[in-house]
């Protein structure tokens, strides 16, 4: 008895990451534990900081574009799009309807493939190996479609200021259509593996709970906030790229736990498929680039044939074009939440300041409130459910 009275308990501090498979990159979390229970979780970030905002100030507007898809390798087209929308707003460019519809189709395909990677890796973190093999099969097809359209699978840089690099090839529409035809049955496969799975439910229901008020206060956005019951989607509240012409639902959850985030993202994939279906049905014909020879380079075929077009292209790519002085903040709904580009121009050909509001950076702040009071093993589920991309967190 005497000896037991002399024993003392204290918190154990352990370090998780930055090299840890379930942190999805180089995230370090300092965990303070009381036994198995998390008392405090402090994320330490910045391991992947590449100074993209500083770098962009030294490049012309066209040259800065490839930096944007390197932020979030799971949503390259949405990052490109957001940057282009901001610059186009400063230039007051009119984007033709075909380009707008193609942007919607590609954005939604991006959302589906991002959610697929999330689903596969999240399930893998929790211990379900099989879903990854299924989700990567469908993701592969989407990446093939990206390659077909823009020539590149991941860092596409296909969306350009004023429209696109080029129109999509003829096959594109039929490839996308056959993908969305087969996709609902694939969704059933994933759901069959997880939704009613006892182990999955035990590991996710009631884990990582956050309330709507706290989520908003902490800046949480996207599916993670919608899982708390907040019906807020930038595609509806601040429509861009003709999203107001499509009818779709905003799925929401009620409990704000890991399981609800899972359900919300699954339903989002269905809604994205629905948007793509509508866009394909009404896809207009016509040009895919704005009419503005100061900003939009001539078509590639002409560049190969005529010296004037070659000089023209060279001029735009190397010297750039002047953008009227002013500032804009353009938000879009990325697969992770509110992605915003704040661009300030001083009237010259390089951005004076480019600030990128990335959803992962802000959402990660909620990690601590979600994890405190839970077991160590739960933090893996919570990190997975916020769906962070570290390239985007650190910029």
């Amino acid at each position, binding site marked *: 008895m005497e000896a037991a009275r002399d024993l003392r308990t204290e918190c154990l501090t352990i370090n998780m990451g930055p090299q840890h498979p379930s942190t999805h990159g180089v995230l370090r979390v300092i965990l303070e534990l009381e036994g198995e229970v998390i008392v405090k979780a402090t994320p330490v*970030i*910045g391991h992947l*900081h590449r*100074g993209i*905002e*500083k*770098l962009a*100030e*030294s490049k012309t507007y066209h040259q800065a574009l490839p930096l944007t898809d390197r932020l979030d390798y799971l949503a390259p087209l949405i990052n490109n799009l957001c940057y282009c929308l901001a610059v186009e*707003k*400063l230039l*007051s460019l009119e984007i033709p309807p075909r380009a707008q519809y193609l942007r919607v189709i590609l954005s939604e395909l991006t959302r589906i493939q991002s959610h697929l990677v999330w689903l596969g890796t999240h399930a893998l973190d929790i211990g379900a190996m099989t879903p990854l093999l299924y989700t990567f099969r469908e993701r592969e097809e989407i990446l093939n479609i990206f390659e077909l359209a823009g020539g590149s699978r991941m860092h596409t840089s296909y969306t350009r200021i004023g429209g696109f690099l080029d129109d999509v090839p003829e096959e594109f529409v039929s490839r996308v259509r056959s993908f969305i035809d087969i996709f609902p049955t694939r969704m059933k496969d994933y759901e069959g593996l997880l939704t009613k799975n006892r182990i999955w439910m035990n590991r996710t229901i009631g884990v990582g709970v956050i309330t709507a008020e706290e989520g*908003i*206060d*902490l*800046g949480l*956005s996207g599916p993670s906030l919608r899982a708390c019951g*907040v*019906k*807020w989607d*930038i595609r*509806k*509240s*601040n429509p861009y790229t003709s999203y107001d012409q499509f009818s779709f639902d905003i799925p929401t959850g009620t409990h704000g736990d890991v399981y609800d985030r899972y359900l919300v993202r699954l339903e989002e994939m269905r809604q994205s498929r629905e948007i793509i279906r509508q866009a394909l049905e009404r896809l207009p014909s016509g040009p895919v680039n704005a009419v503005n020879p100061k900003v939009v380079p001539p078509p590639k075929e002409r560049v190969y044939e005529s010296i004037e077009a070659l000089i023209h292209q060279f001029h735009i790519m190397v010297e750039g074009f002047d953008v009227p002085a*002013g*500032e*804009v*903040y353009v*938000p879009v709904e990325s697969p992770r939440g*509110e992605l*915003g580009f*704040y661009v*300030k121009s001083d009237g010259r050909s390089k951005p*004076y*300041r480019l*600030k990128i*509001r990335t959803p992962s*950076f*802000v959402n990660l*702040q909620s990690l601590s409130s979600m994890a405190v009071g839970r077991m160590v093993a739960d933090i893996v589920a919570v990190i997975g459910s916020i769906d962070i991309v570290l390239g985007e967190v*650190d*910029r």
Partner: protein
Amino acid sequence: MEELREKFPEALEEHATHLGEETITVKKEYILSLCNYLKSQGYNFLSDISGVDLGVDKNPRFQVIYHITTVPAGKRLRVKVNLPPDNPSIDSVTTIWKSADWFEREVFDLFGVTFLNHPNLTRILTPDGFEGYPLRKDYPLRGR
């Protein structure tokens, strides 16, 4: 906006709408009371805090820019504050929006703007022991 002008007659320096985006510029002494008021008016979501270096020889040299939003309606407002070149500092808004924590650390890290009464004002993106403020215009592109 009229209400804002009535409530804070001395705080507003400028009010402009450009390309459909509304911007107000306020004096830095009023940032806390003004943000408190804006939050009570429905701006419950802090989208972003960004710093800008207006130029090495400019006065005011720094700007801190708050992008605030009403959720779920999606109404947006930009609040700007000008800061002097020497020892730029401003009150932290972490008591109003918790999300300001990391945003302010980032502006501190990259611009050297001090946020008063911030719970943990340390560098966030650059490594420990890093010197200088990379996004200032006098910081060389290739580092030091």
